[in-house]
C-alpha cells in the first residue's frame, strides 16, 4: 500500500523544503514547529536559571550571586517555565497535530494562528528585555500584590513582567479560540466528537479552560498596571484596596493553569500508551469524561493556594474538599492507562519509556498534592521546599516527561527521520535519576522547615545535605538536556529514514507522508472508528464493527 511505503530517496529536508518563509508562514505545521523551537530556547534559558538557583544553594552562607540576583533568577525561572516553555510547547504540539489528527488541512483561522505565535515570542522577548532595562522581575511568578505595587517595587522590572505576560496572554487566548473552533468545525467526515483521538479531545478542553480562566488574570494584571502607572488603588491596602483580591484572581487562573499544562500531557500519554501496548485505550469514554470533570472541578479549587492567608474555616473546608475531589477523575485516567498497559504487548521504545516515567512521577506529585490539600498539613508546609518538590513532580514529572514522549513519538512525522534510540535511553535514565535526585530531597528539606525563596541558609539547620543532593541532581538534569538537544540536532540531519508510519500507529496523522505536504492530505479521509488506520490495515476485523 502506498500509504506505508517511503524510501530514503523520498525524504526531503525536514519541513523546511516547502517553507516559503518561516517569518510569514500561516501553515499550522510550521507554526507548530516555530512554537516548539522557540520554547526549546526558553527551556535552555529557564534551565540555566534553575542551575544558578541550585548553585547558590549548594552550600550554607553562600554568596555566589547574592539576594537580588537570586530573586530575579527564581522569578524568571518560574515565569519562563510556565509561560514560555510548557504552555507554548504544548501549543506547538497541539498546532502541529490537531489538524492532522482530525483530517483537516489547517487550523480554523490560520492568520490568527500566526498572530498567536508572534505574540508569544514578543511577550517572551519583552519579559527578557527587562535584563537590559535595569533588572529582571524579582517578585515571584505569581507577582503578589502589594509587593508588586509601585511603593514596594520601584523601577520598571515589574512593568516588564506585566507587559510580557499580557502580550503573550493575548496570543494564548487566540490559540485557545482557534483550537476549540478547529476541533468543533473541521473534523473529517465521519469523525464525530466521540471518535476524535483523545489528544484532540484534551486540547479542546484545554482551550475551553483557557477561555474562562485566562481573562480574569488578564483583568487582574491590567488592574495592577493601572495601580502602578495611573495611581489606581486596586491592591493598595493604604487606600482600602485588598491584597487578597490579587491572590483570588491570580489563583483563579493559576490553578486551572496547572491543568492547562497537564491536560495536553494526559492527551499525549493517551496516544502513546495504547500504541506501545498494542491495545485499544481502556475506557475511551471514561478518559474523555474525566477530562470534562477535571476541567470543571479545576475552576473551583483555586483557594487551596490560600489556606495560610486566613480565610474562614468554612472556606478552607470547602476548597479542601473540592481539591480532594479532583483526585477522582485524575485517578480514573491513571487506572485507564494502567489497564491499557496491563496485559498488553509492551513495546519499550523511547516514547513508551517516557510515558511510563510520566505515570510514576505524576503519581508521586499527585499524592503529595493530596497531602497539601489537607488544610492542617498545608499550614505546616506551605511555602517550604515541600511545595517546591510537589509542584515539580507535577509540572516536570507530568508535563516534561510527557513532552519528551511526544518528541520521540512525533519527531519522525515532522521530519521524516527517527531520533536516536541509544541516546534516548541515556537521556531517559539520566532524566529519571536526575529528576528524583533533584526534587525528592526537596520534600525532606521542606519538612525540616526550609522555606522556599530563601537565597541562603546557615549550616546548623541540617539542610545542607539535602540541598547538595538536589544540586547534584540538577547537574545530572543539565547533562540529560544536553543529550536531548544533541539528539534533536543530530537526528534532524542524520536520523534514519522514518517512513510514514514507523510505530505502526492508528491515528490519522500517520496516514499522510512524513513530513506531511503543506495541504496535509491529498484527499480528506473518511473516518468510521477511533482508529482509522487500524481499520485500513485490518479490513478483516475493523474497529467500526465493534464500536457503537
Amino acid at each position, binding site marked *: 500500500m502506498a500509504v506505508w511505503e517511503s524510501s530514503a530517496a523520498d525524504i526531503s529536508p525536514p519541513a523546511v523544503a516547502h517553507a516559503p518563509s518561516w517569518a510569514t508562514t500561516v501553515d499550522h505545521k510550521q507554526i507548530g514547529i516555530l512554537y516548539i523551537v522557540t520554547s526549546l530556547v526558553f527551556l535552555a534559558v529557564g534551565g540555566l536559571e534553575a542551575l544558578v538557583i541550585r548553585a547558590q544553594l549548594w552550600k550554607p552562607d553562600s554568596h555566589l550571586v547574592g539576594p537580588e540576583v537570586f530573586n530575579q533568577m527564581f522569578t524568571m525561572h518560574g515565569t519562563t517555565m510556565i509561560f514560555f516553555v510548557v504552555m507554548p510547547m504544548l501549543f506547538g504540539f497541539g498546532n502541529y497535530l490537531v489538524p492532522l489528527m482530525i483530517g483537516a488541512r489547517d487550523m480554523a483561522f490560520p492568520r490568527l494562528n500566526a498572530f498567536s505565535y508572534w505574540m508569544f515570542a514578543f511577550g517572551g522577548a519583552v519579559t527578557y528585555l527587562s535584563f537590559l532595562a535595569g533588572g529582571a522581575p524579582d517578585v515571584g511568578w505569581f507577582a503578589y500584590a502589594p509587593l508588586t505595587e509601585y511603593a514596594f517595587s520601584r523601577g520598571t522590572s515589574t512593568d516588564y513582567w506585566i507587559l510580557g505576560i499580557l502580550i503573550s496572554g493575548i496570543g494564548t487566548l487566540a490559540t485557545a479560540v482557534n483550537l476549540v473552533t478547529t476541533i468543533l468545525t473541521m473534523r473529517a467526515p465521519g469523525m464525530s466528537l466521540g471518535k476524535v483521538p483523545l489528544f484532540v479531545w484534551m486540547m479542546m478542553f484545554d482551550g475551553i479552560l483557557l477561555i474562562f480562566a485566562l481573562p480574569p488574570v488578564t*483583568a487582574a494584571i491590567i488592574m495592577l498596571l493601572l495601580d502602578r502607572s495611573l495611581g489606581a488603588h486596586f491592591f493598595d491596602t493604604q487606600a482600602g484596596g485588598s491584597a487578597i483580591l490579587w491572590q483570588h484572581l491570580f489563583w483563579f487562573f493559576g490553578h486551572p493553569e496547572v491543568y492547562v499544562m497537564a491536560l495536553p500531557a494526559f492527551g499525549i500519554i493517551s496516544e502513546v500508551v495504547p500504541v506501545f501496548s498494542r491495545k485499544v485505550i481502556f475506557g475511551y469514554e471514561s478518559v474523555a469524561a474525566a477530562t470534562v470533570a477535571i476541567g470543571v472541578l479545576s475552576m473551583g479549587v483555586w483557594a487551596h493556594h490560600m489556606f495560610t492567608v486566613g480565610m474562614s474555616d468554612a472556606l478552607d473546608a470547602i476548597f479542601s474538599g473540592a481539591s480532594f475531589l479532583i483526585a477522582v477523575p485524575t485517578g480514573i485516567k491513571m487506572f485507564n492507562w494502567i489497564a491499557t498497559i496491563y496485559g498488553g504487548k509492551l513495546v519499550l521504545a523511547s516514547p513508551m519509556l517516557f510515558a511510563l516515567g510520566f505515570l510514576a512521577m505524576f503519581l508521586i506529585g499527585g499524592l503529595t498534592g493530596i497531602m497539601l490539600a489537607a488544610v492542617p498539613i498545608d499550614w505546616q508546609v506551605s511555602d517550604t521546599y515541600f511545595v517546591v518538590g510537589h509542584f515539580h513532580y507535577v509540572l516536570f514529572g507530568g508535563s516534561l516527561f510527557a513532552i519528551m514522549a511526544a518528541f520521540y513519538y512525533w519527531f519522525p512525522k515532522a521530519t521524516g527521520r527517527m531520533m536516536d534510540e541509544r541516546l534516548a535511553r541515556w537521556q531517559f535514565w539520566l532524566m529519571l535519576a536526575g529528576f528524583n535526585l533533584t526534587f525528592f530531597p526537596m520534600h525532606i528539606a521542606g519538612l525540616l522547615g526550609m522555606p522556599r525563596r530563601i537565597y541562603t541558609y546557615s549550616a546548623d539547620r541540617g539542610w545542607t545535605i539535602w540541598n547538595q543532593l538536589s544540586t547534584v541532581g540538577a547537574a545530572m538534569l543539565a547533562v540529560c538536556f544536553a543529550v536531548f538537544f544533541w539528539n534533536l540536532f543530530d537526528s534532524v540531519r542524520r536520523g534514519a529514514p522514518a517512513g510514514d508510519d514507523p510505530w505502526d500507529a492508528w491515528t490519522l496523522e500517520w496516514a499522510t*507522508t512524513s513530513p506531511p505536504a503543506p495541504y496535509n492530505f491529498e484527499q480528506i479521509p473518511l473516518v468510521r472508528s477511533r482508529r482509522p488506520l487500524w481499520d485500513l490495515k485490518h479490513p478483516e476485523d475493523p474497529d467500526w464493527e465493534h464500536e457503537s
Partner: protein
Amino acid sequence: MNDASLTSGIATARALDGGSGAADLDATHRTHVGMVCFLCSEAAFFGTLIVAYLTYLGASKSGPTPAEVLSLPLVIAGTAALVASSVTVHLAHAALRAGRAGTFRTWLAATIILGALFLVGTAVEWHELIFEHGLTISRNLFGTTYFTLVGFHGLHVTVGLLLLTLMFCLSLPGFVSQRHSDGFDVISWYWHFVDSVWIVVFAVVYVFGR
C-alpha cells in the same frame, strides 16, 4: 495516498460539502463558533471587573461616594440609546438578510448614531465627575473601580462603532450585500453582547451600587 478504503470517504465528503457554496457556509460556521468562544472570554473578563467593583463597593476611605456624584438622568438617556441600538442593529441585520441594501444602510446609520450618543453621554458624565466632583481613577477606590469598569465598557463600544462604521463605509459603494449577512452576524452578536454587558454594569453601578 491512494488507498481505496480510506479515501472512499471522498464521495461522502463531497456530498457533505456540496460544492463551493457549502464551503462558504463552513467558513461562516467557523467564524460563528470562534466568535462565541471569544465572547465567552469577554464575559469572563467583564465578570472579573464587576467582581472587583462589588468587592470594593463602600470600601473607599474618603469621598466622593457613588450616591453623591453619579447622575441618573444622563445615564438613563445613554442606556436608552444603547438598548435602542440593539434593536436597530437587529433591523439592519434583517434587512441585509432580505437583500434590502438601502434599508440596511439606514438602520446601520441609526445604530451608529445611537452608539455615538451613548459615548457622548459617557464623555459628558466623565467630564462632570472629573472637573466638578474631582473624582479620578486615583482619587479613591470608587474612582478606581468605576473608571476601570465603565472605561473598558466604553472601549468595547468604541471598537463596535468602528466595526459598524467600517461596514457602513463598505456598503456605500455597494460592497455589502445579502451574501455577507452571515458575516454580519458576528458584528451584531458583538454589539448585542456589549449592550448586555452595559445592562449589568448599569444595574451594578447605578442601581444596586448607589
